[in-house]
């Protein structure tokens, strides 16, 4: 089932996290001062203004990092087909040509769907090199028997998903049962096989930054290829503050273990300006290596439209209309 990844060329950074066996002593006492994080998050976009050609290039990079997503009860094969077509051609050819990027094979980072939509997505993306991502494990609440959640992961992989976005049992994080969290994620990871496991922490439901940091750490110990903020269904989804907590935990994990983990903020990222702020966060906190779709994704459905309009504005000098951008 494996396909070449869009940026899988030699030398591209890759996630690399076999995980580590759970020992309570190996969970560090990660401490996060909320006010300090808020200051950092508030000043970062103001410190890192990206303009003109740089902005266009950064926005195109952001496009390649989008997990173009539809996760709704009314998803249909037709809807998924349209989404996949958009993933293959996320930016109009005339705009790409004007930017000198027509030969760069600009696609989104992945298409993200519910498990039953995986076969449709896989069929529509065949030959594109674009991975199919599937949510699983009783998304979004995760309150399903463990065997069923494991089966769901295996099923989605079998149907052609290259990436599985699993949700954690929030109870384990909220009650400090880190061993249980590690255990369930280890089983999900096994069920993923060669597919990447992206662990959704649902940070909006974890209460404090300290818990978010610890949950990030335990997810990485269990072999998460990506850690992801949110399902998009919580009342608080990705923010720069909780992203900062997660990328710092991720960086520390890399320092301690040498293993590389990717990061995916999801939910609420709707504007090109927000995307630039997140890219600056990643560049400054994790470094340029992480500015690659193999290590960083946006979970978003409406972000692409705004980026398209900004890119058209960059090319024409005129503010763009939404209806000039092809729908997904």
């Amino acid at each position, binding site marked *: 089932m494996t396909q070449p990844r869009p940026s899988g060329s030699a030398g591209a950074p890759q996630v690399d996290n076999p995980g580590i066996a759970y020992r309570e002593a190996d969970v560090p006492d990660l401490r*996060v001062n909320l006010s300090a994080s808020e*200051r950092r998050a508030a000043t970062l976009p103001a410190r890192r203004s990206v303009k*003109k*050609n*740089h902005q*266009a290039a950064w926005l195109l990079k952001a496009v390649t990092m989008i997990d173009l997503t539809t996760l709704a009860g009314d998803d249909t094969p037709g809807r998924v087909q349209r989404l996949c077509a958009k993933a293959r051609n996320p930016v109009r050819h005339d705009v790409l040509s004007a930017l000198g990027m027509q030969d760069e094979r600009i696609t989104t980072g992945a298409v993200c769907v519910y498990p039953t939509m995986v076969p449709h997505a896989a069929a529509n993306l065949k030959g594109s090199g674009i991975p199919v991502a599937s949510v699983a494990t009783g998304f979004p609440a995760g309150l399903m028997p463990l065997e069923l959640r494991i089966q769901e992961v295996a099923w989605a992989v079998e149907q052609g998903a290259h990436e599985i976005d699993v949700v954690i049992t929030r109870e384990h994080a909220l009650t400090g049962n880190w061993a249980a969290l590690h255990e369930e994620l280890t089983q999900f990871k096994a069920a993923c096989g060669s597919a990447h496991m992206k662990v959704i922490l649902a940070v909006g439901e974890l209460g404090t930054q*300290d818990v978010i940091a610890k949950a990030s750490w335990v997810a990485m110990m269990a072999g998460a290829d990506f850690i992801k903020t949110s399902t998009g269904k919580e009342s608080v989804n990705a923010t720069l503050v909780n992203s900062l907590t997660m990328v710092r935990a991720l960086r520390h994990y890399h320092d301690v273990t040498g293993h590389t983990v990717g990061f995916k903020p999801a939910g609420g990222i709707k504007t090109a300006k927000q995307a630039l702020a997140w890219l600056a966060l990643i560049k400054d906190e994790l470094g340029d290596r992480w*500015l690659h779709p193999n290590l960083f994704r946006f979970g978003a459905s409406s972000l692409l439209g705004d980026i398209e309009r900004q890119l058209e504005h960059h090319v024409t000098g005129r503010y763009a209309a939404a209806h000039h951008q092809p729908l997904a």
Partner: protein
Amino acid sequence: MSSDPATVKEIFNTMDYGPAPESPKEALHWIQQHGGTFGHHIAGRLEAPGRKRFETVNPGRNETLARVTQGTKGDVDRAVKAARDALPDWAGLTPQARAEHLYALARTIQKHSRLLAVLETLDNGKPIRESRDIDIPLVARHFYHHAGWARLATETFPDHEPVGVAAGVIPWNFPLLMLAWKAAPALAAGSTIVLKPAEHTPLTALLFAELAREAGLPAGVLNVVTGDGQTGATLVGHDDVDKVAFTGSTEVGRKIREATAGSGKGLTLELGGKSPFVVFEDADIDGAVEGVVDAIWFNQGQVCCAGSRLLVQEGIAADFHARLKRRMETLRVGDPLDKAIDMGAIVAPVQLDRIQELCAIGEAEGSYCHQPSWAVPEDGLFFPPTLFENVSPASTLAREEIFGPVLVSTTFRTTGEAVQLANDTRYGLAASVWSQDVNRCLHVAPQLEVGVVWVNGTNQFDAAAGFGGVRESGFGREGGIEGLTAYLKPKTDRARKAFAEEAFTPKAEPAPVDGPADPVDRTAKLYVGGKQARPDGGYVYPVLGADGTLAGTASLANRKDVRNAVEAAKKATGWSAATAHNRAQVLYFLAENLTVRRAEFAARLRQLTGASRPAAEREVDATVSRLFGYAAWADKLDGRVHQVPMRAVTLAMKEPHGVAGVLAPDEAPLLSFVSLVAPLLALGNRVVAVPSSRHPLVITDLMQVIETSDLPAGSINLLTGAKDELAATLADHDDVQAVWYVGTAAGGAEVERRSAGNLKVTWTNGGKRIDWTDDRDAYGPAWLERAHRVKNVWVPYGV
């Protein structure tokens, strides 16, 4: 501006930050409108440029921006006269009318915020992000806050009046913000002001004066005279200035203290610093690393309160330094007008030279210097972020204020050692404390000898919270209610008559040898560290009664006795740490014990001063009442929680100065002495007091009352002898934090002049007579106010 030569394709692969320039066009246009040359702004009018001018430079490009006028004595005279002429009308406005003017200034600043920000960055070299997001919004906030004070000052301080004509000497690191810190409270209080901006950065002050005029501020209320240090000295020394506010170096602050000694001018000094940034092992380490960025790489480290001494707990030091170095790699230094840089240019070549020189000394002394791998631009005055590791407290870099982007790091083992190292400096401006344990933070904050503590934060400022230092970082506060009072004075000051006591110099006699001639040795001893002590010199002096007969002999203290007394007072930290309830109880007890001996003290007063019986009894009763009064106040001087615009409690804690020297007059020797000593004791100061030189025996009698009143050893020490001689030693003493002197004008001036050594807080009667019997003059809030200092502790919270 520079074009963007890289192609989208190239950038797509490198993901570099590109240039993000803010246009200087409007600001340069404003300079050109004035022909690139400026005169002073006096009496509501921008004057023609003077004959002697100097250049102000854009340090980001090392290019001349404009020429401004070197202020002469004549210019200063004109400006002070304009401020004096404007004073009656300005002070006479209704609070509402003054408030409207300040409100209009705040609105004007907001309206022109981008122009002010760009001009500030051009002139100073600070990043546009900082001038745009920090400096100018804080300036506007300061005027809004003080528009409120303009409305409320009279009803809040009904017994006060405007101080008069103020002089503000402004530094170059936050040119407009420091102007606001001086102008806003002055104007709110009903005073008028003459401002002297720094020679490196005069432009925003000139623009501000222009905008203020357009906003309808009456002519002469705010005047700007440009020039160098000489102009500043002329302004500070001007006879018709009532109050001086200076922000700048400790060296210049000391000169101003000396120059204004005996002038009666109010003085606040906000000086240098070497502020500790303390990181405990239980801190949010990444958060603290980012805190360091905001502490020492804010405004290129040219910040008086910059967290320039990193103190990090030994167990996490290696990790912390590694993370800090990684963070240093991602800092961006360059064109100050670029919106995506972290650090701009050093203000002037002379400053860059000093930074380089001190770094060279640091390396020569063997400290390890780390700088990022990248190079700073060459076409401007740039210096990279710099870290010196393993810097011992003895090294030059740990002691000297560098005033640049240079951090020095030292490790500590325990909380106690952290406090000790933090306080191991001549300065005392600010401190940062990083720990996720609020118990630890609130344990450490009160022990730090500084004016501001930021818990898990740094460089936070707000108009509602006072800012200022202790030790050689100066005295006085700017901002908050504690800052406003510097521009007000008690109305009673005006009613005081001239001090008329004749100076009395005791004549030494050898101490009598204990012997059979006089079965009881009637020589009153000194009282030091809770014990009666013979004078070091072995001399006594005769004390005469009102009738000219010998009333007894008193010990003649010398400088060594001062040394011993200060040492005892310094050790008596228990009194400062005691609960306010406890201090109140002790003072009540003292009053009670004095009541018991009312007749005896009245008799002694009659013997020494010749007072009538009723007068002497009144003095004893008034003394008891005053002691009761201050005992009552002791546990009621609550601090405040300032309302700063962030999720934090900002605690304005009232703290004692520490060791205070008191020099009392001859008049009403019991009452005046207790009126001076009691408020200091009530607030937790430890006192070294010199009673009336002429009538010391009533106070040496009091010694016995003190001995039986539970005042802990060293909390009060008594030295009898020659007042002005002992005053000089106390004012000189580097371990004394405050001196109160009542005596001749010349004696007071000498105390103020000598206090410049360690910049201790002084209060003198200014050659005026205090009416000790009048509660309005000799008792109450004004005395309590000067008996303490305010420490602002910022405690942000949240999980």
